């Protein structure tokens, strides 16, 4: 078992051997397409690409983290985590899931790096005490997180920073940043870095980004914060089902009041939807069961850099009520919303890209199969 041989089957062959039907396979491809907001006529191309693929090696590094991102990964229903790790990628190092421990675990990481030099993906969750911080603040197998990150990314194809801690420094970096925590993109400058932010990210967004890479062999279009446009291109506010109440000026003033019961806008309870770019309102959470606003709590803004140090959870963002989305963006650009200026600049480019896309839902795609 210890001697790994070279993979000799394509992904498509492997999937057929385990008895996945053609229809089931196409359904998976369709779900992949819809997650990436691609038109259904691309499904056959996706299927062809997936059938050729060998399972790429993925090394998952956990640093200053809470494992919420891994938990979120396991909640993905399409592709499911079991399909992901058995059929789609070779998850060669992952503290929470791997069988091996201690030396044998570290050996697995080194073997994967050696066997897939230049081709493996590195996924990081958690922030990293930077080169100037005490290396003892966070170690694995006696090595500092910083050294492990640098050693592992050296021959990686790309790095995906999963969760707001890895992407932007997250909670450990919140004031006063006691451990000198830094993000992956603060430290890795010579590799493509994709940020999949959120605390945690939506399950299907984590797997969706991987599926994009597996399917097309390249990285998705990114915004100014290096987040995939397909999932972070629209604000929560613009996609929120409570938006009509905002436009009508109907707001919940307290939890459990008449407005809260009727599903009115949570803006005055502190909702950060207007300044938060994420797919919660369209993809929802936990197999489409609900999402924070639908369950009555204002959006915390967890996919945005620095959200922990922005306004309190229950302080309304300082935007005049009744403005349109366009004026909201302009308001942000002139600094009415703290810290949102950079995002607003990125949004202009986003708007053009969005206009050229054709978003479709999973249901629509499945009907067309």
């Amino acid at each position: 078992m210890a001697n790994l041989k070279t993979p000799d089957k394509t992904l498509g062959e492997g999937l057929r051997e385990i008895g996945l039907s053609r229809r089931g396979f196409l359904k998976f491809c369709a779900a992949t397409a819809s997650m990436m907001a691609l038109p259904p006529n691309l499904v056959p191309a996706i299927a062809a690409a997936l059938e050729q693929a060998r399972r790429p090696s993925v090394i998952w590094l956990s640093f200053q983290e809470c494992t919420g991102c891994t938990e979120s990964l396991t909640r993905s229903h399409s592709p499911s985590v079991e399909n992901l790790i058995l059929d789609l990628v070779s998850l060669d190092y992952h503290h929470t899931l791997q069988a091996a421990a201690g030396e044998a675990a570290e050996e697995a990481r080194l073997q994967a790096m050696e066997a897939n030099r230049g081709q493996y993906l590195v996924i990081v969750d958690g922030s990293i005490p930077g080169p100037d911080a005490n290396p003892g603040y966070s170690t694995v197998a006696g090595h500092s997180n910083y050294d492990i990150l640098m050693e592992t990314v050296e021959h990686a194809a790309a790095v995906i920073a999963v969760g707001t801690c890895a992407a932007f420094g997250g909670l450990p970096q919140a004031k006063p940043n006691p451990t000198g925590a830094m993000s992956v993109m603060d430290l890795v400058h010579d590799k493509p870095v994709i940020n999949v932010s959120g605390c945690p990210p939506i399950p299907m967004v984590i797997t969706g980004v991987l599926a994009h890479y597996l399917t097309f062999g390249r990285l998705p279009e990114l915004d100014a914060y290096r987040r995939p446009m397909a999932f972070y291109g629209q604000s929560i506010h613009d996609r929120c089902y409570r938006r009509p109440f905002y436009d009508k000026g109907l707001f919940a003033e307290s939890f459990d009041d008449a407005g809260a019961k009727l599903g009115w806008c949570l803006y005055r309870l502190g909702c950060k939807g207007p300044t938060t770019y994420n797919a919660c309102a369209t993809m929802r959470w936990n197999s489409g069961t609900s999402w924070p606003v639908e369950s009555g709590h204002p959006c915390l803004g967890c996919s945005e850099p620095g959200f922990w140090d922005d306004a309190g959870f229950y302080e309304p963002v300082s935007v005049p009520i009744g403005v349109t989305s366009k004026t909201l963006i302009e308001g942000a650009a002139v600094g009415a919303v703290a810290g949102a200026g950079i995002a607003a600049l990125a949004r202009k480019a986003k708007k053009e890209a969005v206009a050229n896309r054709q978003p479709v839902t999973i249901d629509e795609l499945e009907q067309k199969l």
Partner: protein
Amino acid sequence: MSERLVVDPITRIEGHLRIEAQLDGSRIAQAYSSGTSVRGIETILKGRDPRDAWGFAQRICGVCTLVHGMASVRAVEDALRIELPANAQLIRNLMIGAQFVHDHVMHFYHLHALDWVDVVSALSADPQATSDLAQSISAWPKSSPGYFADTQKRIRTFVESGQLGIFANGYWGHPAYKLPPEANLMAVAHYLEALAWQRDAARLHAIFGGKNPHPNFVVGGVPCPIDLDSDSAINAKRFAEVRDILQSMQTFVDQVYVPDTLAIAGFYKDWAERGEGLGNFMCYGDLPGTGSMDPATFLFPRGVILDRDLSTIHEIDLHDASQIQEFVAHSWYDYESGNDQGLHPYDGETNLEYDGRGGVKPPYTQLDVDQGYSWMKSPRWKGQAMEVGPLARVLMLHATGHAQTRELVEMTLSKLDLPVEALFSTLGRTAARTLETKIMVDAMHGWLDDLIANVKAGDTRTFDDSLWNPASWPSEARGAGYMEAPRGALGHWILIRDGRIDNYQAVVPSTWNAGPRDVADQAGAYEAALQDNHELADVKQPIEILRTIHSFDPCIACAVHLTDPESGERMQIRVT
């Protein structure tokens, strides 16, 4: 210092844990448990709005994703004397219940099972015999020979791909694996099924809290309103969904988790003879029957058991400065007034000091265990080390005469033909987790019934807004929020001054269990358990260490989140 056996990283846990073991031949003589990563969440919390604290505290851990949010809102509610609407308490109970069931099942199959189940051996199983085995222990419908043949084929295809992924470099074929191939195949099938099942179980948190991991909370209740006539509140459709999820949990626990635990345990009865550790057990208690945190109404009782003596339950007071204290004699922290004393969380100091307290400069091969060797502190109750968690709770339920617990324990012991002392062991700890999951999932139906009955009677309140506005708060207040988390007794202590957090301390289950030695050289629970009768069959493949450590279900991000690098300022605040 002589060479030591090192296991780092301990995988299939939450967080960063290192175990060093001093061997006497092949037997563990001394064990040292070290948390090797720190973030500083308590320091980050200072100066913030106490109503926001739950969101920060919740990120202490994403596995027990609900518990720190819950302990945090309870701490604020205790400080401000907020009583919850009954519905909010019932919804919280349901969310706690879902957390237990989800977490314990995932722990068993995805974190612990590979210590007992040899995946490679499953390839030589006979699918027909596997089916016979599965059907002999359970009515679970996924048990046909064809089903197991398909599962086996899937695993074989995976193995033959040459890319072993998460199964690479496991200790496959180790002589300590005792299950026959058919039991291994059945367990592997259930490993995969449990991955799919847990996605459904987690949906309960999404209904009430918007998402999982990290569902939302609010001080004074729950964020979701109840309104049967609204499409955007908890309504009849949502109640039906919750009922379905409960049913799915119930079926999986009854037909898969409980029978698998008993079946697998039957092959590992020698593990009832090691791994006890301390013999001291502590529970804060939880799952109130009313809107207040009244221990008299708890499903899980509170108290301390000392030295296996179930006949005497000692009382706990979380506010008493002489009871719960944290020590740092072997931790990478400095106490201003000396590192030999213990401090109650209200008076807690946490100054990071890696270099000056014995931290070895990375890269290192061995800790300096004579000095500091962990980012965890050593919490003690009246100076004594305590084990917390499922075994503590089951013993407490048993000691206080809980009929269902007594029945389940008796059933388990008689099926396994083991004496009652077998509970005090690695195997007992793992079995206790399964039994309390059964108790929990059964209780959940009752909370849902009560919630629906309240709504039927016209009570839909889920939030108390009377103390929402910080202007209504006293200028100084302090409180302790506590709960039984899946891994054990969890407490958060908060000091509020002028509407802001003045100090915040969390003493968490895995700190009780995984903490290092204290000033009196008393070992923590992990260390003591590993020092109890552990003979390693192969020191290069120390599977025995994984078994006992995993029986506690470590959650290390929880255990090491402390710091206060700036000052050792201590607050003396009177309860207002």
